[in-house]
C-alpha cells in the first residue's frame, strides 16, 4: 500500500507527457472518440431496428456473439494484421480504435433497439391515432421512452471501452494502461497499482457523470428506469 501512495504522491508523476493528468486526458480522449463514433452509428441503427422490427435476429446474435470474443485476442489480431500496413503513431492506434469501436457497438445497439422495441404498443398506437407521423412517433414518443435503455447501453459500452483501452496499452497505445504495462515491465508494483487505482476511479467517475446526465435527460415520468436486464447488459472486460 505504501508503495502505491509513494508513487501517487511523487510530484514527478504528475507532470509532462507521461504524467498522470496527460495519461488521464489521453484515456478519456480515446474513449470519447470511440464512443462518439460508435454511438453515431449504433444509436440510429438500433432505433431503426426497434422502430421497424427489421433485423432483430441479427442484432441479438451479433450482440451475443461479440460478448464471447476475448477482447485481448481480438486486439492482437487487429494489430498484427493492420499495423504493418500503417505508418507512424497511428500504426498501433488505428487497429486499437477499430477494436474499441467494434466492442462499443453491440451494447449501444442493444440498448437503443430494446428501448424502442419495448415501448408499450398501446402508447405507440395512441400516438399514431392522434395523427403523429412515423418520424413524429419516433422523435416524440419512442425515443423519450427509450432513453433509459439507450443510456444503459451507452454506459455499458463506456465501461467496456475504458477497460479495453487499458488493455490496449500492451500494444503501445497511450492512456492510463501505460502505468500498468510499464510498471509490470519494470517490476514497479507501486506504479502498477497506482495506475490501477486511477483507472478504477476514472471509470467510476465517468459512469457517475453518465448517471447525472441520464437523470437530467430522462423524463421523471419514466423513473425509476428499468435497468438493462442482466442478459442484455454487456460486462466490461
Amino acid at each position, binding site marked *: 500500500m505504501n508503495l502505491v501512495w509513494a508513487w501517487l504522491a511523487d510530484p514527478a508523476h504528475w507532470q509532462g507527457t507521461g504524467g498522470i493528468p496527460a495519461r488521464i486526458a489521453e484515456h478519456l480522449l480515446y474513449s470519447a472518440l470511440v464512443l462518439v463514433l460508435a454511438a453515431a452509428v449504433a444509436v440510429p441503427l438500433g432505433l431503426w431496428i426497434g422502430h421497424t422490427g427489421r433485423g432483430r435476429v441479427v442484432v441479438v446474435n451479433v450482440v451475443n456473439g461479440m460478448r464471447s470474443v476475448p477482447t485481448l485476442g481480438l486486439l492482437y489480431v487487429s494489430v498484427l494484421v493492420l499495423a504493418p500496413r500503417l505508418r507512424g503513431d497511428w500504426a498501433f492506434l488505428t487497429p486499437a480504435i477499430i477494436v474499441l469501436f467494434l466492442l462499443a457497438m453491440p451494447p449501444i445497439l442493444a440498448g437503443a433497439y430494446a428501448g424502442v422495441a419495448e415501448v408499450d404498443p398501446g402508447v405507440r398506437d395512441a400516438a399514431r391515432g392522434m395523427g403523429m407521423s412515423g418520424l413524429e412517433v419516433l422523435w416524440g414518443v419512442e425515443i423519450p421512452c427509450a432513453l433509459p435503455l439507450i443510456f444503459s447501453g451507452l454506459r455499458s459500452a463506456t*465501461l467496456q471501452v475504458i477497460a479495453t483501452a487499458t488493455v490496449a496499452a500492451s500494444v503501445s497505445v497511450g492512456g492510463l494502461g501505460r502505468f500498468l504495462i510499464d510498471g509490470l515491465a519494470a517490476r514497479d508494483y507501486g506504479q502498477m497499482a497506482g495506475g490501477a487505482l486511477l483507472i*478504477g476511479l476514472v471509470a467510476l467517475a465517468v459512469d457517475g457523470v453518465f448517471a447525472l446526465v441520464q437523470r437530467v435527460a430522462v423524463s421523471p415520468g419514466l423513473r425509476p428506469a428499468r435497468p438493462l*436486464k*442482466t442478459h442484455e447488459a454487456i460486462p466490461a472486460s
Partner: protein
Amino acid sequence: MTWFLDHLALVGSLLLVHAWLAVVPLLLGLIIAIPLGWLAERNRVLRPILVVGTGLLYTIPSLALFILMPLVLGTGILDPLNVIIALTVYTVALLVRTVVDGLSAVPETVRQAAIAMGIGGARRFFTVELPLAVPVISSGLRVAAVSNVSIVSIAALLGIAQLGSLFTDGFARDFLDPIVVGIVACLVLSVVLDALIIGVTRVLTPWVAARSAA
C-alpha cells in the same frame, strides 16, 4: 492448423486451466450472490446498497482489479488466486441483481398462497421462491460465464498462464496462429459452458418447456 496440431497438448492444458479459472468464480459467485440477493430482495434499506454497491465493483476494469487484488489479499501479483477472487467479485456483482430480479418476479399471489398454506421462511425460499427464480438466475449466470471466459484471458498480461497466454505469445512473436487458436478455444469454451448451463436449467425447470409448448 499445423501449429494447432503440433501444440495440441499445450492448448489442451491451457484450456483446462482457463476453464478452471472461469468456472470456480462462477460457482463461488453464485453461492455468495443467492443469500445477498435474498437479503436485498426483502430488505428495502439494504436493497439499493447491495445492488448499487456490487454494481460499482463492476465498473472497475478487470486488469486494474487483478493488479489491485494483492493489496487486498496480500497475494503475489502472479497468484491465480487474484484472478479467481476478482472474477468472483464480478460474478457476484452481476448475479446479485439477477437474483433480486428473479425473486421479485415471483408473483405476490404465489407468495401469499404459500404463506396461507403455512409454508414459512427457509422452506418457502427453497421450495417456492428460489425454484421459480431459476430461469432468470440462469440467464444471468450465462452472461457471467461468457464474460468470465473473456476476462480470464486478460490475466495473461500479468503472466498468469491460460488460453490468453497464446495471445501474448503470438503477439510477442508476431505470429497469428496461436492467437487465432486461442480465440477459437475461448469461443468453444464459452459455447460449452453456455450449453451446460442451459442443460442444467432445463432439467431444473421442466415447467418452462411445458409452458412454451402449451
